[in-house]
């Protein structure tokens, strides 16, 4: 493919050669993308929770709330990140069956997956997942319910702050609410390929 | 703003480019333009040799033909006085389109110089001369069509300022104001189906607002919309804003 590389770079150079001046890179102030309808928040979790609800996500502040949600919907089989399970297991009733290894041959056997978030963005209600911090990409995606476990100090104010703090990780995912589509007649349907329910659990 | 780089207005001597549409069809719009400019204290020179701005050929893709006509305009409108047009679209041809067509021509500078002193009438009154209110009475509910070639210019804000200052004028809002009426010059005859469908949508929105008349700073849009409305057997009243201003000031 090296010849294609040369062909492309040669034609790009030839295309640009006649330009007398080349466009400078404009600088811009991140204040410009400040969403003015959002009041500056002192409590980033409160803002995050409010924005997450706007995209039909589910913010929770206690494991007991999560258990109540799971029981109410009869979501009784799930996966939990083995590193998180010790801190949750006392709160979970015996009727909810948890596995700490995700078996990709049985994707439909899991109603929910609990994994760790690496951060969040308050302004957009976004959860940040990383490859290093997520125990299983599939467990955070394939079950109907995804629970991302978040700590208060991990929340960034806005997109610019989250970009400035992008960790050195090969696969970072920002998740803003449940998976969705409006392909069929513009009607909003949630839970297309990913979760239909996106939970952020504050611990 | 498309026409931000303009020569400041220092005197009140102006040249009038009546536009081919007013020259051929809308004579009263050109008359109203003269009377309005005179009311604003201007002395008007009407170069007899003028024809057209070149836009039909430019938009039609025949830039060779367009350049001939633009060059004729450059030869006709000499000197340094502002050139005023009762048309947002012909004005935009002079201050924007012509520069594109002359990008690689040796006389680009002259073409651009003409562009910098070319003004759409309402823009000139408000942003050139500093007029902020207009005298007289004109009791009517007016729907103002936003002619597309005034996008990015001060014309619409200027028009609204003047219209709203006239006693009795009520500017009524209507749906999808940013949408084109469907005229588009030669587009209207090479895409007659789409052009007409666009016109029908525009008319539907305008009629829903129940105005007494439809006004614009471009008679080409008005020709298309009133022609369509009349063809359908439901004529609508259309006026150029200059005619509204002229009629208002004569009704004090």
């Amino acid at each position, binding site marked *: 493919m090296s010849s*294609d590389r040369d062909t*492309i770079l040669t034609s790009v150079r030839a*295309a640009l050669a006649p330009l007398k001046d080349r*466009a400078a*890179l404009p600088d811009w102030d991140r204040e*410009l*993308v*400040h969403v003015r309808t959002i009041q500056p928040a002192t409590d980033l979790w409160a803002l995050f929770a409010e924005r997450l609800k706007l995209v039909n996500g589910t913010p929770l502040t206690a494991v007991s709330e999560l258990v109540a949600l799971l029981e109410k919907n009869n979501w009784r089989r799930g996966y939990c990140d083995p590193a998180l399970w010790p801190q949750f297991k006392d709160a979970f009733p015996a009727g909810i069956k948890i596995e700490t290894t*995700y078996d990709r041959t049985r*994707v439909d056997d899991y109603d929910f997956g609990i994994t760790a978030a690496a951060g969040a963005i308050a302004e957009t209600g976004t959860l940040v997942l990383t*490859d290093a911090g997520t125990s299983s990409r*599939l467990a955070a*995606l*394939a079950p109907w319910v995804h629970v991302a476990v978040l700590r208060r100090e991990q929340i960034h104010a806005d997109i610019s702050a989250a*970009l*400035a703090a*992008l960790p050195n990780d*090969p*696969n*970072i*995912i920002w998740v*803003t609410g*449940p998976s969705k*589509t*409006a*392909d*069929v007649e513009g009607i909003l349907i949630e839970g*297309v*390929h990913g979760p239909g329910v996106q939970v952020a659990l504050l611990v | 703003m498309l026409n931000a780089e303009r020569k400041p207005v220092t005197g009140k001597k102006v040249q009038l480019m009546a536009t081919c549409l007013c*020259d*051929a*069809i809308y004579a009263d719009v*050109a008359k109203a333009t*003269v009377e309005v400019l005179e009311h604003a204290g201007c002395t008007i020179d009407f170069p007899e040799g003028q*024809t*057209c701005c070149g836009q039909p050929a*430019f938009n039609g*893709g*025949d830039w060779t*033909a367009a350049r*001939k*006509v633009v*060059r*004729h305009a450059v030869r006709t409108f000499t000197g340094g006085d502002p050139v005023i047009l009762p048309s947002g679209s012909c004005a935009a041809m002079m201050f924007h389109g012509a520069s*594109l067509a002359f990008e690689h021509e040796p006389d680009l500078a002259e073409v651009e110089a003409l562009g910098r002193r070319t003004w759409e009438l309402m823009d000139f009154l408000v942003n050139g001369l500093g007029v902020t209110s207009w005298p007289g009475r004109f009791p009517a509910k007016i729907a103002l069509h936003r002619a*597309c070639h005034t996008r990015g210019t001060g014309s619409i804000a200027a028009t609204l300022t003047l219209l709203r200052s006239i006693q009795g004028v009520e500017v009524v809002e209507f749906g999808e104001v*940013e949408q084109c009426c469907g*005229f*588009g*010059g*030669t587009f209207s*005859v090479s*895409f007659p189906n789409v052009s007409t*469908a666009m*016109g029908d949508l525009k008319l539907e929105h305008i009629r829903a607002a129940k105005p007494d008349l439809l006004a614009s700073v471009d008679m080409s849009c008005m020709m298309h919309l*009133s*022609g*369509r409305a*009349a*063809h359908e057997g439901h004529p609508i009243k259309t006026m150029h804003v200059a005619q509204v201003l002229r009629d208002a000031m004569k009704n004090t």
Partner: protein
Amino acid sequence: MAKQLIDQFAAALPADKRASVYQSTKSTHEKRTKMLFDQFAEPNRLRSLAGGIKQHVLEHLDTLLPEVEAKLQANGAKVHWAATAEAACAAVLGIMQARGATKMVKAKTMVSEEIELAHFLEKHGIEALETDLGEFIVQIDHDHPSHIVRPIIHKNRREIATSFEKHGLGAYNDDPQTITRRAREFLRQKYLQADVGLTGANFVSVESGRLVLVTNEGNSRFSLAAPKVHIALVGIEKLVPRDRDLGLLLNLLARSATAQQLTVYTEFISGPKSATQPDGPEEMHVIFVDNGRSEVLASECREILRCIRCGACMNVCPVYRQASGHAYRTVYPGPVGAVLSPLLAGKKFPELADLPKASSLCGACNEVCPVDIPIPDLLLRLRDKGKREGAPLAAAGTPPMGAWALLATQPTAWKAALFGGKIINYLPTKLLPIPPLRAWEDTRDLPEWKGGEFRKWMKGRGKS
């Protein structure tokens, strides 16, 4: 004088299709505009800055491309180059064959549509399945997308339900929720069986070598969670200089495309999965695709390469709304397509030379473009090109201008014509064999000719 092809297509479009395209585009456009202007103090400044950033990238591709290549390689990705569509298809096939791979899941990528990848792979015995719901429906129907963000904007739920039934995806049921669930069940098995996940990239940061992908459905994420190989097809124009510039572009893209603050899934991918991660690709291949782009870069329409594929221009375009995407006969419809498609066609430009005519030059596309592409100016330049090259498709329906220009440069003849034109007030114009006049009069009345009247009045005032 024939009418333009797109006008003929629009006239033949069934009313219900036109209504659904019109309603969807209008509603998305209105939500987009409200959101941008409610939320940002200076949305137009943002558009201009984003355009400036992308223009900078285009004009520095000669240095930025090798720079991002090195970054990607350092991150552990393998970089390939494809000068043409054929080379891009061959590169994908080569990677797959070398690994004995036979199954691919595809996330939505416009460049794969452009190079007709799925079709090519199928010919070579590889299953290449579209996973975006709309693209999946297009694929099973052997149809084409008609909008770059909403591929099935032209289809209604009944057509989809019929198609699902025909392809064994359950008994007829036209409830959108049921349609979506059935696709979910069917496709997740496909992800798990696939050897390769193919994606595009919305942006590639030169600073960090991260590919940025945005989707709402989560299909690209699934394509990067189950298969062991990731191939990304990336147009050479997709670069952004710095990670921080994404703050501007992501904010604009989501709002412009779908009136969202942020797309549901925004992924930053800089290499194969980490060692501790059980799921995801062990190899990442990035294929930089030219396929005509460097020629566009050499043209005076290079600004079109700023495009971030949001679809806002087609949503606002009155011609697209009347004609729908298929009228444009190419992968990229609407105003952006009317510029990009004829340019990417290269020597086949004459076959698409009519597309730049499909505009009233109203400028709405430029007004909404998140990277401020002066689309009307580019359409005009291509009209000039079409005329210079004598492309018959471009000429159709446009009255010849040579004689008119002659008249408009001779004031005496002009004045005589103004006066003489009055004859049309007395002639039965409906019977005259003048095509532009007929095209006008078929649907609109002619105004009364008053040629010379103003000049007479003006002269009279001078004397008094």
